[in-house]
């Protein structure tokens, strides 16, 4: 257990420099903007006084190092300042939007997992047969389809003729569970399909690799039921590496959510970020960027913990990678 603890501590210590680095990148978004960001935000026609005022507000008159320390100090406390557009606290804006993006991403992940497991397993078990070919073609189409176009197609085919599915907006589970399901289903399919396809390919390949292992032959030689070998031992060993990938895919899901939210008019953090970019609302952009980085790193930490729990080779192996 102490080894597991040490492993976890190591991962936690890895996260700190990564997040500090992420904060530098986030901070640089405004610094990298060519010319004077204050002038950039206010436009060419703004008076010199207004520009100076904004520079003071953004802290741009201070040395860059002081600005950065100030940014990190506040960001660590969850304070990203005020929106330049609405004067709202950025953190409050984020908190209001998080539930939508969370509901969409979790639903998307659920669809990816629920679809990929049976399809991937059938593909591996029936290798070379029609079912396998179908699952491989499906997976290839899945990774080749842009999520926002799939979203448009789903609206075209389902939401336009059927009133049950709204074309625009999303209801939260906490407000109305049934409306939440119907309003989340189509965007979640749009978001989850590519991930489902990736997971399918991974699981199928993993299982086929596992089936080549010595223990499978041994189990067969011992006369253990083929099904038991496949569905218990092979599947278990093939699923483990897939879990790490799900952690990585969370990033792809969050990134995809930004675009899918735009298609379905979902008021999540992605839509907030895009609006902020058009309004040159840098504090909001920084808030969203940092929030996503923290979520992504935390999710991967969580997956590592889970993985270490499930696979003794990791926590007993000592060094990582």
């Amino acid at each position: 257990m102490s080894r597991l603890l040490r492993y976890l501590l190591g991962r936690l210590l890895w996260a700190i420099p990564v997040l500090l680095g992420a904060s530098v990148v986030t901070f640089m978004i405004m610094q990298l903007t060519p010319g004077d960001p204050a002038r950039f935000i206010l436009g060419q026609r703004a008076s010199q006084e207004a520009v100076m005022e904004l520079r003071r507000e953004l802290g741009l008159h201070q040395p860059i190092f002081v600005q950065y320390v100030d940014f990190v100090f506040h960001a660590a406390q969850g304070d990203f300042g005020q929106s330049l557009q609405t004067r709202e606290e950025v953190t409050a804006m984020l908190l209001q939007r998080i539930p939508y993006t969370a509901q969409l991403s979790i639903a998307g992940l659920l669809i990816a997992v629920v679809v990929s497991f049976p399809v991937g397993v059938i593909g591996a078990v029936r290798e070379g047969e029609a079912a396998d070919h179908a699952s491989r073609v499906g997976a290839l189409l899945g990774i080749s389809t842009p999520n926002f176009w799939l979203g448009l197609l789903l609206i075209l085919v389902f939401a336009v003729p059927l009133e049950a599915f709204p074309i625009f907006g999303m209801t939260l589970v906490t407000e109305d569970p049934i409306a939440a399901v119907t309003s989340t289903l189509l965007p979640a399919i749009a978001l989850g399909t590519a991930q489902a396809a990736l997971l399918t390919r991974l699981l199928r390949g993993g299982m086929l690799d596992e089936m080549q292992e010595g223990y499978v032959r041994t189990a067969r030689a011992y006369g253990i039921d083929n099904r038991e070998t496949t569905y218990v031992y092979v599947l278990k060993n093939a699923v483990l590496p897939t879990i790490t990938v799900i952690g990585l895919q969370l990033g792809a899901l969050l990134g995809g959510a930004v675009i899918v939210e735009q298609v379905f008019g979902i008021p999540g953090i992605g839509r907030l970020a895009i609006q902020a970019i058009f309004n040159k609302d840098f504090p909001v952009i920084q808030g969203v960027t940092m929030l996503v980085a923290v979520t992504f790193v935390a999710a991967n930490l969580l997956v590592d913990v889970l993985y270490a729990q499930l696979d003794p080779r990791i926590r007993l192996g000592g060094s990582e990678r």
Partner: protein
Amino acid sequence: MSEDARSYTNVKWRVYRRIRTDLIAKLGAVIVVFSIAMAAFSIVDDFLLSELVIETLLHDPYELNPNNRLAEPSLAHPFGTDEQGRDILARVIYGTRTSIIVGVGSVLFAAIIGVSLGIVTAYYGGLVDNVGMRAMDVLLAFPAILLAIALLASLGRGFTSIIIALGVAYVPSFARVTRSKALSVKSDEYVTAAEVMGYPTRDVLVDEILPNCFTPIIVQGTFTLAVAIIAEAGLSFLGLGVNPPTPTWGIMLSGAQQYITTAWWYSLFPGLAIMVTVLGFNLLGDSIRDALDPQSGGEERRL
């Protein structure tokens, strides 16, 4: 030196044989060649011939025709027309170049930086390796598309911005792939031999290690191209990509969104173009990987 040359021609020959014999590989290669040809055609036709060829065969992709808004697909307009009365097929053809240029550009950008970084960190190890790979971890803390969006927030719109933004986002994958290959290559005998013979480090890296890392880099490049084409379309869809008069599939789809209830063809065809192109690169990537790496039956290297 002859070793490098041989392994390189061998790689090309294996891919070539695969494409000749495998139907799937052939399909992928045909799609890829076709989309590159379309992109080249639209560049030549647009900038040298001022839309002469496409106007003769189809319609001017830029010409507004207010009397023929959102016309259904017909013989005259096989893919229908958009909200300005422009021919969608002509615009889809012209849109190919944005996808290909941004895709190839960002992959080249990512590959040049990522591969150099991967080789240097693997060769020197120690502090260099640590710093380089931590930097990659930082970039990986952001989902690629979000990193690109954040960078575009300060770079603004346009071809160069989007190539840089996507390029930066894909650097880590090239760095990691190259590093892990270079780590195994650097202890090979010919590398040691070159070092012992006193070759400058730069030559060892470029002439000995780099050519032997080509295989995974080519595979990574093909798959990243597929991802980059989807990403470019997505960013253009969001309004963060290239500037509007340039025909691009992403911008067409964002226009189509408004007319989703009335003009199905407008959202169908540009998306189909993206899917087919990306499928082509994915098929080719699969085939190249299988041809170059027969022992990897599984697909766990997909990410």
